[in-house]
């Protein structure tokens, strides 16, 4: 029992120290940099935030020689693997795409469950600051070349939530957007039209927003950090 009490006291002391040292720290206790005892008995230093993610800045990827890049772009345009981020009202328009009526598969579009497997990111409708944080994490985990489709008028200028305290106004200030699909709400046909537009852009070699993100990384990060006050993740989440 004594050891238990000691442990509890130690924990309480530690949390009180942390609270007094920096009250503004939003990093969770399990993510803090600390020393732990490894299974082989040795003491090691761990930093959970940076141990699993690379904090390195993204690199710009130059296009290859003319014909090769053209062929690659054709191939990319015909296989769009979509990650749907359905937090806004627009996400209800995404499921019908995969039904026989609209059938997005005929255009080489298919849905995936994780950012690591997808190259197109549909962001539906309004984004609160809390969900923007998750959007950034997901976007940065997607392999390049990657494309963003912003669905609905809220992503363009805030839409009907333009004066809300919790939702952002313009998505392209935080991550680069390839295709806007305007409307409130856009129908599945509009989404299909957006996919066709995206395919055109890819084939013309104009869908280079992932490179733009790498190029203007500091600017985008500054915008993101301006509104995400509790930044408790690595600067780049790859």
């Amino acid at each position: 029992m004594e050891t238990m009490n000691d442990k509890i006291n130690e924990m309480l002391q530690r949390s009180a120290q942390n609270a007094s040292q920096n009250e503004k720290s939003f990093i969770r206790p399990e993510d803090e940099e600390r020393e732990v005892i490894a299974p082989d008995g040795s003491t090691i230093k761990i930093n959970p935030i940076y141990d699993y993610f690379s904090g390195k800045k993204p690199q710009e990827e130059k296009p290859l020689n003319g014909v090769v890049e053209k062929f690659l772009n054709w191939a990319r345009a015909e296989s769009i693997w979509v990650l749907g981020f359905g937090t806004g009202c627009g996400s209800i328009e995404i499921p019908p795409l995969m039904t026989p009526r609209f059938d997005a598969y005929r255009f080489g579009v298919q849905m995936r469950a994780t950012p690591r497997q997808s190259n197109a990111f549909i962001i539906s409708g309004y984004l609160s600051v809390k969900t923007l944080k998750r959007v950034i994490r997901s976007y940065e985990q997607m392999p390049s070349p990657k494309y963003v489709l912003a669905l609905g008028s809220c992503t363009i200028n805030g839409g009907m939530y333009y004066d809300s305290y919790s939702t952002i106004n313009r998505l392209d200030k935080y991550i680069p957007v390839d295709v806007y699909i305007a409307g409130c709400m856009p129908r599945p046909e509009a989404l299909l039209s957006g996919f066709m537009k995206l395919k055109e852009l890819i084939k013309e070699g104009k869908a280079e927003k992932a490179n733009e993100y790498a190029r203007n990384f500091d600017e985008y990060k500054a915008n993101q950090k301006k509104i995400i006050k509790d930044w408790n993740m690595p600067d780049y989440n790859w």
Partner: protein
Amino acid sequence: MKAIVQEITEKYSLQNVVFQRDNIAFVDVEKKFAIDLVTFLKDYHQFSHFVMMSCVDWIEDGQFQLLYLIHNPTLKVDIGIKTYLNRTEPTMQSAHHLWKQIWTYQREIKEAFGIDFPGSPNVDENFVLEGWTEIPHMRRDFDTAAYSEKTYFPREGRFTHDPATYMREKLYPNQPVTAKKNTNEQ
């Protein structure tokens, strides 16, 4: 129902008793007796179901109003207990020991209005917002439009086109504009 309201009116010297319907009554009670009254109704009169708890900001009176709505499943009647807090020191006795769902209500009210409930579990944790540094956002002196303009990138004003002119410019840019015939002159 009438008997119960009569009893609590005498016991807690309540003012402003309103029967909204036969089965719903609202009573105003002093802040220090509010939780006692809820407990009394729960323990003695089988108001065992906690319906909801809400908060209203009466900024003109300098008060917050808290409402506890409770239900008696046997008699199928509801009583709403309203109490008023000073806006400058918004602290209320916690009722987390009565029903567990009050934990969440109190956490939400703490975040949205800044009313403290000392002793309520997890009351200081984030409820919806993360890393909020301004005054609580549901207080009426918080200007959401100004905050949005300051924090996010505001939209560049609305503008509208006259449909006829806009379509003519887009579809027939080279065609000269002809004046519309005034039929009254002829």
